């Protein structure tokens, strides 16, 4: 290489020549930093001191065992919701229905939990409840998948509608058939179907709702990663997502992958019941999912639909969710909703920018 060429290449060395790997790290960092900056601005506009707010948030979340437990508990559900969105996203399917699939799952788990005989051994009871939650979630998502494959119904519309239907079904069954009179929840499930809390097993994270389903969830994320990137199934599935026509030529059945991706997504969403019902509430309650399935979309997007990154991005959103609650006295929760939403928008904008840079 001539000297001249070398000097020319140095003089034009902006972001363009950064290697893709450092860029991939830079983009989430940039979006996080700018999200913090914008949030501070909003907090100032709402009449508070951002530094004080952030301090309080950190102290009451990551600063106490109870706070840590709360964040971990929220993170657990968010990981599952993120995966429920991410798996179908790998074949360019947008699962907006994690919320509905989770609702069906929690209801099924709570019902199973109350109906099981009291004498049944705990591992069996827990497994049966989890199985019914998974089946309900998967079934609900497969409805959308089937509509897509058989009739070409857009999965976004189908899953949104199925969310409403899930809400209707569970709401109706709860109110008119299964709720304990003058409450909005079902009877408690059999104690043999409880998933133990971390507190009771280890004595850590005192009194917090965090429970052993977090471990199960981490395992599921790991399994998803293996399935996507290290199995033949994932090899086929990603190919049919990236280039459906090429996949067809390669003898891959794209319709089958639509169904399995939706089914797996729904099953994982349903599994959220393990954390919410078996690990914490021990019954089904109106509004217990609280829109967390939608936050899952943000979790998945922030992580680029990668199962392992989802662990981190769910932690971030779990922190925001619970952190927002802890500073409720100083700053309204609405402000935190704004912050969350702005973060999502920033992330999407930055990743679009990142693609242009690459």
């Amino acid at each position: 290489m001539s000297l001249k060429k070398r000097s020319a290449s140095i003089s034009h060395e902006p972001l363009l020549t950064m290697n893709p790997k450092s860029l991939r790290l830079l983009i989430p960092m940039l979006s996080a930093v700018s999200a913090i900056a914008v949030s501070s601005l909003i907090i100032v506009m709402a009449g508070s001191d951002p530094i004080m707010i952030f301090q309080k948030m950190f102290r009451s979340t990551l600063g106490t065992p109870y706070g840590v437990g709360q964040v971990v508990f929220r993170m657990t559900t968010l990981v599952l919701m993120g995966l429920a969105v991410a798996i179908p996203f790998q074949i360019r399917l947008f699962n907006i229905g994690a919320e509905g699939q989770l609702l069906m799952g929690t209801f099924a788990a709570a019902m199973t939990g109350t109906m099981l005989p009291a004498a049944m051994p705990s591992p069996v009871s827990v497994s049966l409840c989890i199985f019914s939650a998974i089946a309900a979630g998967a079934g609900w998502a497969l409805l959308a998948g089937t509509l897509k494959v058989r009739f070409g119904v857009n999965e976004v519309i189908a899953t949104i509608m199925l969310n409403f239907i899930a809400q209707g079904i569970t709401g109706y069954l709860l109110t008119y058939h299964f709720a304990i009179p003058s409450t909005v929840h079902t009877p408690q499930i059999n104690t043999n179907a409880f998933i133990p809390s971390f507190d009771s097993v280890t004595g850590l994270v005192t009194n917090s709702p965090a429970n052993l389903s977090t471990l199960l969830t981490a395992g599921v994320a790991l399994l998803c990663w293996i399935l996507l990137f290290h199995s033949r199934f994932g090899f086929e599935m990603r190919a049919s997502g990236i280039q459906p026509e090429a996949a067809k030529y390669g003898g891959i059945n794209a319709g089958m992958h639509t169904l399995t991706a939706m089914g797996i997504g729904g099953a994982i969403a349903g599994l959220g019941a393990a954390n919410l019902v078996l690990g914490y509430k021990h019954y089904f309650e109106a509004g217990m999912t609280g829109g967390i399935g939608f936050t899952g979309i943000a979790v998945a997007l922030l992580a680029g639909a990668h199962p392992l990154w989802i662990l981190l991005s769910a932690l971030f959103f779990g922190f925001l969710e619970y952190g927002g609650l802890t500073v409720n006295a100083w700053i309204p929760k609405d402000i935190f909703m704004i912050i969350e939403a702005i973060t999502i928008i920033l992330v999407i904008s930055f990743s679009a920018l990142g693609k242009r840079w690459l």
Partner: protein
Amino acid sequence: MGVAVRLNDVSKKFGSFFANSNISLSVEEGTIHALVGENGAGKSTLTKIIYGMHLQTSGEMSIQGKPVRFSSPREAIKAGIGMVHQHFMLVPELSVAENIILGHEETGLFRSLPLKKAKALIKKDAEAYGLAVDPDAPVANLSIGEQQRVEILKLLFRQAAIMIFDEPTAVLTPSETDRLFATLRSLRARGKTVILITHKLDEVLKVADTISVMRKGEIVGTVPASSVTKQELAHMMVGRSVLLRVINPPASPQKIILHIHKLRYLTPTGEEKLHDLSLNIRAGEIYGIAGVEGNGQSELLKALWGLAPAGTSLSGEATLKGTSLIGKSPAAIAHLGVSHTPENRLRHAVILDYSISGNLLFGRHRERSFHQGIGFNKRVIKAYTETMIADYDIRCTSPTRQPLSDLSGGNQQKVVLARELGRPRISLLILAQPTHGVDIGAIETIHKKIIEARDSGIAILLVSSELEEIIALSTRIACFYKGSVRHEFSQEEVELKRVAEHEFEKEIGLYIT
């Protein structure tokens, strides 16, 4: 005559890779200047710099004596540069005239389009340059050749003085090509400057005034077309002497592998694409199908690979060693011992985001020998990848990390062929446009491998738009016309006529038009 385009020491870097390095070039006004080179030699990058799609990393450019630095094609268009892309930039739903004025309507937001004025101008241009098209016809109804004419009219309408053509003949039939060349000459006669990118050497010699040869991002020479031969150009392009014709020893066909009898293909809208097609392909022969695009070749390929769209009605027989292929899925057909390189490599044969190793596996990932547990056996795949890369001379930096989209067209095609020719126990190989968009160096490798496959006893069906390729490789040649075989040249005839290739091309030409 002045200089239309002058480049002085222009380089373009992507990451740490120099797509163009220290290019100096001057294109004289009113000439046809060809840029030739293998795929990945940097022709496209260079023209994208001239057309304002890329900004050079260093160096200067001037257009008609004025120094310029384009940051978008819009600026280049303003400076009088136009480009006919390989993939046309037309809106199928709009008429020819509407397409031509698109972006240059010269009217107010709520005023009607000055279509009448535009049509008069278009008509004038069309007559002057022999570009007959109906300005009112919807573009969707036009043939590829006609669409290209619309693209040229578009440039004339914008009064471009410098016109860049990116592989303009890749999609044309021989007669359309001749017609295009006549147009290029008349453009030159009226003082336009034409920059022609191609890798077809015969064409360059036929039409260009000056030829610049590119290799590995550099210009290795600029010569007047009148003073070079095809062999000299080829030598400059690849840096070594290549055989322009593959050594093709006589084949010894064995028993029938593929038997097609009275195959009829009706599209869902009732169009008959194959009409009582009958042919047999034997083990150890290459059966070449010559024909103008749209005479049923694509449909035959789809039918044989289980991809006829829903609603297609197929009747007749297509059997592989007695087993019917009709109604089977691609996976099942592959399992029977059929291998296929699709016509459209980028869309159908590869996953661009997957690594080279992943693409060597894609479509063959069901083979047991690659499996381990629920995943793949990394060791076996690594060995397989290394063998294929060495065997086919696939040029890449990292087989597992580099996405396939990083490779040049020729190397991508080598990946596809390595994968498909390497399938175990294949009895039928379907090759569609095996060297489309592939450079000379790679063509040589690919042709050798095809002959090798034939000699190992595989039956090969070859569909190609390059008559030269059909003639060079085939044992027998079928001339396709309107969905059936109009004429078949026997092995003896092909071997006899191959010697006088040019005459043979003409004879085939009679049967396919």
